[in-house]
């Protein structure tokens, strides 16, 4: 039977944290069986279909200024709808493994599109190919309208090569900096000339724009096209290592253990870059459960939100609120800041973001109020502070979620609430001394305890 602490560790990394139903379903099995069940039963690819795929620019053409304003508003609303639909998938435990993998690929094959149809399709490509082999995934991504626009390959023509896509393909997606030369970038760009899209985002290879000449890429010479470039990249040890490192940093630890990364890289090579096999291998490895890896990853803002949503069965009350909240926390899913993607690891943390994060739970679940005991509240003595506090609580309503505290408390009628909650929320990472000194005897409601616990820095980790 799998250790409970290990089950939580697995769920933190393969999914989006503790989920009551998931934990119930997975108890009393071996590690192998648990991983197997998760990969088989919680791994369906469900495309998003909240945006009509046939919508085109013509549908948003406007004639008058009022009309333009209205169309702009429509696009904004649809953008928020798409974003919220993806967040709802993240919070859905039934396909948690697939969704976590898509979340990972979004920050590896970083791309964004202000065209909502293209953005939805890009999401669905990552969804469909999340556990495919890397070659199919890379080709699908490279031929998507979103990517062809984002990194300007649609403007990449024989007479006027545009290197933007070729460069990022080598640097960020497949090889990593230092594993290719400037000349390789130029030659790869030539090979991708003519990859573009027509109409409503349908991929097209335009032969007249393609440079049919001989190219030399990573030491090989031939009349290469885009497929050849991807395939030559995948032959490189550097590629397996780059992908393995990206997977390791996301799923295991911010600090690289060379031997462990190397094992993942070798698995990628041996399985012909089969992502499904590689990920199963990772979660079945003994080293994945080493003490050094448990509770050592910082939650991303989305992981934080998903954990709050799942643990407390809480929901954002509108798409617009959810959008604003992601903006506040600097992680708007599907809208990365640049092609480098969202920050990784502890890079999320500085003084301001940390405080924002610590105040998040009380903001979402309790109108911004953390200290329900007013005697402790220094604000009461300082009028300016009081004013700020009231203003803050007013602002908070812009983000607030809906949750049923009574229902939540009902789960914690019996037993030691503090112990139970501390286990669920921190995987036992908090010592009993600290717990008992922070919580006095009369704080006996599960609500008060839970709110304070998730406002501790320890909750930032997973």
């Amino acid at each position, binding site marked *: 039977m799998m250790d409970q602490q290990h089950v939580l560790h697995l769920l933190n990394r393969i999914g989006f944290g503790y989920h009551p139903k998931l934990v119930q379903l997975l108890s009393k099995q071996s590690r192998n069986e648990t991983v197997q069940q998760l990969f088989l039963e919680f791994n369906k690819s469900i495309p998003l279909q909240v945006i009509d795929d046939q919508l085109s620019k013509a549908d948003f053409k406007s004639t008058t200024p009022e009309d333009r304003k209205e169309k702009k508003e429509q696009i904004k609303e649809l953008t928020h709808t798409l974003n919220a639909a993806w967040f709802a998938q993240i919070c859905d435990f039934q396909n948690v493994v697939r969704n976590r993998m898509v979340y990972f690929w979004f920050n590896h094959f970083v791309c964004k599109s202000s065209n909502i149809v293209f953005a939805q399709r890009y999401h669905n490509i990552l969804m469909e190919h999340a556990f495919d082999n890397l070659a199919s995934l890379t080709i699908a991504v490279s031929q998507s309208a979103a990517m062809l626009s984002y990194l300007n390959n649609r403007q990449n023509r024989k007479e006027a090569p545009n290197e933007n896509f070729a460069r990022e393909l080598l*640097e960020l997606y497949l090889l990593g900096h230092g594993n290719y030369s400037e000349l390789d970038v130029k030659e790869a760009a030539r090979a991708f000339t003519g990859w573009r899209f027509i109409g409503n985002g349908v991929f097209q290879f335009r032969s007249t724009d393609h440079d049919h000449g001989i190219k030399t890429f990573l030491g090989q010479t031939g009349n290469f096209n885009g497929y050849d470039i991807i395939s030559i990249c995948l032959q490189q040890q550097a590629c397996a290592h780059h992908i393995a490192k990206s997977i390791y940093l996301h799923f295991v630890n911010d600090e690289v253990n060379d031997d462990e990364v190397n094992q993942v890289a070798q698995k990628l090579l041996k399985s012909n870059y089969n992502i499904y096999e590689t990920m199963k291998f990772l979660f079945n490895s003994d080293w994945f459960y080493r003490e050094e890896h448990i509770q050592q990853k910082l939650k991303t803002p989305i992981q934080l939100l998903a954990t709050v949503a799942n643990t407390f069965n809480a929901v954002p009350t509108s798409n617009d609120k959810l959008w604003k909240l992601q903006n506040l926390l600097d992680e708007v899913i599907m809208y990365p800041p640049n*092609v480098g993607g969202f920050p990784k690891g502890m890079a999320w943390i500085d003084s301001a973001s940390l405080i924002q994060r610590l105040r998040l739970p009380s903001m979402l679940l309790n109108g911004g109020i953390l200290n329900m005991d007013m005697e402790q509240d220094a604000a009461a003595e300082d009028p300016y502070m009081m004013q700020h506090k009231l203003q803050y609580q007013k602002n908070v309503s812009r983000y607030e979620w809906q949750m049923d505290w009574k229902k939540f408390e009902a789960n914690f009628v019996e037993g030691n609430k503090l112990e139970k909650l501390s286990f669920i929320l921190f995987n036992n990472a908090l010592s009993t001394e600290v717990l008992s000194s922070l919580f006095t005897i009369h704080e006996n409601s599960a609500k008060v305890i839970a709110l304070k616990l998730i406002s501790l820095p320890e909750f930032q980790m997973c």
Partner: protein
Amino acid sequence: MKRRTFLTNTGLAVLGSMTFPNFLKGIKLGDELDDRRALVVIQLGGGNDGLNMIVPFANDIYYRERPTLSLGKAEVLKLNDDSGLNAQMAALLPFYHNGEMLIINDVGYPEPDRSHFRSMDIWQSGSASNERINTGWLGRFADQVEGPLAKHHLLELNDKLSLAVKGKTYKALAFQNANNFYHTTREPFFTDAATMHQHQHDHHKVSYLYHTLADAQLSAAAIKEKLNFQHSSFIYPKEPLANQLKHVAELIQAYIGTKAYYVGMSGFDTHVQQKGIQNKRLKSLAESLAVFISDLKRNKNFDNTLVMVFSEFGRRVKENAAGGTDHGTANNVLLLGGQLKKKGMLNDINNLSDLDEGDLKYKVDFRNIYATILDRWLDTPASNVLSGGINYLNFI
């Protein structure tokens, strides 16, 4: 250097009932009163096209390579026989003429890297192109200070910290507004938790979170006391950069002891339809800077301020097929301040006849500028901070 101990000087009254964990005792503020000099770094993100900022308007090659993108004589303000300032930046022209703005041409580094991230990392870390340093040049400058350092020795006016202001042990403070930041740090439960945590040291990443929290509370209180609700009375343009600069002017006036401020502006990655986009950005930049300088002058702070404007690379000489330009290499750096030694341009503008595969060859290593600033403005030996490229330029 004289330093004051924070806990003995700044009013403990401000801190009210807050108690601080042991590891904060003895934290010092930066130099005060006797040396009020500060550096303001403005980062233009995306790769600003220097050739359309400081324009070689007398050069045929420029017009040949940029048939649609080049600026005509009417679109530039003549600086000398060879070059002119993009006319959208007219607000800066007076400073150029009276010796308060210096232009350095062809700034870059050997073996240039055309990736945004890599080149920005090179500029921010102050490394050579073939070495990777995961600390910033200003962060390492702060690391040099002995003993515990106030969190706001360096300050970034942003939600996030840039590599430039992250040292090995020291990381800068980041906020958009000091007053708001102060109030968000005051939550008794956080203070209780931080106090508790001094007993725990095993979980190093969690400890980092607790230290960050406590440092922030302390700095926020100290800055708030000094700032004391002073507001700049100048009207700045409506532009994120202008908001940042306005607050910097207020903080400089409050003498909070910060040695370097880091601000930024984005939107310079102009692969497509560059002209209108870049012109608008440059106009905003120039107008924001002009108000900032007037603001500093009114309070006699301009002599104590040095502003450096840079971008991670310039752009290719030849325009692309989409009315834009692709990633290039060397670029202009602008320096502004009341104590510049050199007037006009430090070196001649590129004549565009000697290019490296269509890109400008660098003439001034950017680390020469850093070295000069470190040594002659921040009073720190450049060799303690930079591993190479140390040569001094004669501008301060």
